[in-house]
């Protein structure tokens, strides 16, 4: 994306800002759209493929203020309309432009609890930045105001200056809320319910907290330190965490209420059961789900070879199947683990790829090769049952389907062989089966996703659900949004009960 070094970018911004600061409140929209888009400083690709450190380094304060001055402060705020949690974007951006970082942070926090995370992983180009007036004026969505980077800047500024404020917690109500799963959905419910003074316990199956943020998304995109900080804040608020606790197995879901006295439960167990393609050779040694590959590398620390006891497959040539963020993460992780060649094989074209644009660009810079309009037909093994190659098929775009997208169709006899020793499948997830297996009264759809009403309430009294377990594999921000809604419903239900109990006493 950029050939400039972080130092260069920083110097340029320092020079530029002097002039802009003089006319900060007097610029015409035209002038603002002419302010240069601020590039994200990044680690040199040649270096970063050897480490797990974050790739994007974050704006300097001058860059953030310049970028913020590009915002037109529109009356019709399309950015806010397109934000799943309705952050007051122009208002926080205006604070940044004026150097009021604390105020900017407060505005974001009215709507979003995890800005350091969302600023890094949200698909901004399909959300807030999609219809930004600046991007429209310049006829290029990549030139929209970099809302995500600004959000990240504010959150990082707050963390770096040690000014993270612990949200206020109301007096204890004596009510207990159980949160199952410590992914973004669960963490948001924990925060929102705890603020109302309820006792909150988060149950997590793994030994570490954070859900996909920890075991799926690699540190080069989202450092663990950031997740740790968010969890520390929750702990300081008095949220209780129980790791190594598989609800449904260690304790039945309903027993949390019947035996342990919880008054409400939120189920945020995330996606589960990785999908495979159902092609020949998929169980050969050397074929992994992206979940397994990334969990070994991230959560089990297999990246730190020699230190970690969990092994990771030594690969030279890797094919990753899929075109989403998960595929990008797996491909880039394989590269960092020492693979010489990494191919992303995707059935459609680059335009249809659901991955964040920035990740695709970063992957390309890191030497990942993209095979568009191709797909695996079968995986071929050697005499020991290990992957030795993959047979692929070429596709072309056919007639548009019902959704208006042109559908990929196979080109007959287009088979070719890709020499790989490892195949990582990243084509999506089904639903986590544990809760529904052990809680038959909970209604799920035919894909196993929990069915909820508009307040996130399930078919079972006092049990709410949200995030990927409801939506299927979705996004961090949507999971958070569902968590917020569920917490509001839980808080309302418990408040009404407390009222009733008071009335009965009087």
């Amino acid at each position: 994306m950029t050939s400039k070094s972080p130092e260069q970018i920083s110097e340029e911004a320092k020079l530029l800002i002097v002039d802009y600061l003089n006319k900060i409140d007097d610029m015409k929209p035209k002038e603002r759209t002419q302010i240069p888009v601020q590039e994200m400083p990044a680690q040199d690709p040649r270096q970063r493929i050897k480490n797990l450190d974050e790739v994007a380094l974050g704006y300097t304060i001058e860059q953030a203020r310049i970028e913020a001055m590009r915002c037109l402060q529109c009356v019709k705020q399309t950015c806010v309309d397109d934000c799943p949690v309705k952050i007051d974007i122009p208002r926080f951006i205006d604070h940044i432009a004026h150097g009021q970082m604390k105020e900017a942070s407060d505005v974001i926090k009215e709507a979003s609890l995890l800005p350091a995370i969302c600023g890094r992983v949200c698909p901004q180009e399909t959300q807030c930045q999609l219809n930004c007036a600046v991007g429209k004026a310049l006829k290029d969505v990549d030139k929209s105001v970099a809302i995500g980077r600004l959000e990240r800047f504010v959150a990082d500024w707050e963390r770096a200056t040690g000014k993270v404020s612990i949200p206020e917690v109301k007096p204890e109500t004596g009510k207990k809320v159980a949160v199952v799963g410590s992914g973004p959905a669960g963490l948001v419910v924990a925060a929102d319910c705890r603020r109302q003074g309820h006792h909150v316990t988060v149950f997590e199956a793994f030994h570490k907290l954070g859900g996909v943020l920890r075991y799926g998304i690699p540190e080069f995109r989202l450092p663990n330190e950031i997740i740790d900080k968010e969890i520390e804040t929750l702990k300081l608020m008095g949220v209780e965490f129980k790791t190594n606790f598989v609800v449904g197995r260690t304790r039945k879901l309903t027993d949390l209420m019947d035996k342990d006295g919880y008054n409400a439960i939120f189920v945020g167990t995330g996606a589960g059961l990785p999908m495979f393609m159902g092609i020949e050779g998929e169980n050969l040694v050397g074929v992994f789900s992206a979940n397994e590959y990334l969990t070994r590398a991230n959560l089990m620390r297999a990246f730190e070879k020699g230190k970690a006891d969990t092994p990771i497959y030594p690969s030279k040539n890797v094919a990753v199947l899929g075109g989403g963020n998960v595929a990008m993460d797996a491909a880039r992780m394989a590269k960092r683990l020492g693979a010489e060649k990494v191919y992303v094989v995707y059935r459609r074209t680059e335009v249809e790829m659901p991955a964040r644009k920035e990740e695709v660009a970063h992957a390309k810079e890191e030497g990942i090769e993209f095979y568009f309009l191709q797909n695996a037909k079968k995986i071929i093994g050697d005499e020991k049952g290990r992957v030795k190659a993959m047979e692929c098929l070429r596709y072309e775009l056919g007639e548009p389907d019902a959704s208006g997208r042109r559908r990929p169709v196979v080109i007959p006899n287009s088979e070719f062989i890709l020499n790989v020793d490892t195949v990582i499948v990243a084509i999506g997830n089904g639903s986590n089966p544990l809760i529904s297996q052990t809680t038959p009264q909970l209604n799920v759809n035919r894909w196993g996703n929990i069915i909820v009403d508009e307040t996130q309430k399930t078919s079972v009294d006092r049990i709410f659900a949200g995030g990927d377990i409801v939506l299927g594999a979705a996004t961090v921000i949507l999971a958070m949004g569902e968590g917020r809604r569920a917490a509001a419903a839980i808080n309302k239900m418990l408040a009404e009960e407390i009222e009733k109990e008071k009335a009965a006493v009087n």
Partner: protein
Amino acid sequence: MNKILFKLQLSKDVYLMRIEAPLIAEERAAGQFIILQVDDEYGERIPLTIADADVTEGSITIIFQVVGKSTFQLSRMNVGNEIPTLVGPLGKPTHIEKFGTVVCVGGGIGVAPLHPIAQALKNAGNHVITIIGARTKDLIILENEMKAIADEFILCTDDGSYGRKSLVTEPLKEICERNPKPNMVIAIGPPIMMKFCAETTRPYEVFTQVSLNTIMVDGTGMCGGCRVNVGKEVKFVCVDGPEFDGHKVDFDNMIARLNSYKEFEKEMHNCYLEKEIQEKEAAR
């Protein structure tokens, strides 16, 4: 949490531990397993069957063989130490009912998970025939416990150092030839033993249940590392199993997958062997 309450060395490389885990003790049923880590930063997750549980004491019993670094480290932990990560009970419980005559075949360390199942089958009114086997006498575990349950008891060693000199499949075949043939066989042990037990019973069409010990990471159905071919389907051992119809399991693929990291583990193995030798020398 997860304090080791009792530890006993059963044979050269096999240890029994009773660990404080009240919730797991309360919920577990025969056939289920736990996953543990001896170090929650860099440790590996290892699945182990729950051999027994004591609800009053709030403890579970595990029996494990030292096969790599993690099990070696576990074997070095002592009464009073706490195991940092212990999660369970995982997997589906064994389906227990009165089937009639059930042959329980256990190989090596596989006798540990077999024991609670045999006990439950006995309690349900089955006629339980037990065959236990090992390479050599020193590797036989839980002989008395299994004998106490069994209506018929057969013990064999590969080298003839104890009991009958044969593989477990020999007496199994003889039992299948009886009239009436047994109603069911449960075989638990090394994959190769389970494979041959299934091959032995196949011509007699005796339903043969095996308990698979694949590689696992999460144990909750999230990673797919534990997947096996069962008939035409792909199953996840941690949530669909661990027990499957032995006549349908693709053992060759399962064994190849188990050995995915063999080279890597060999290195580890050598490390721990060296360490053990050093320790022994130091003790001398």
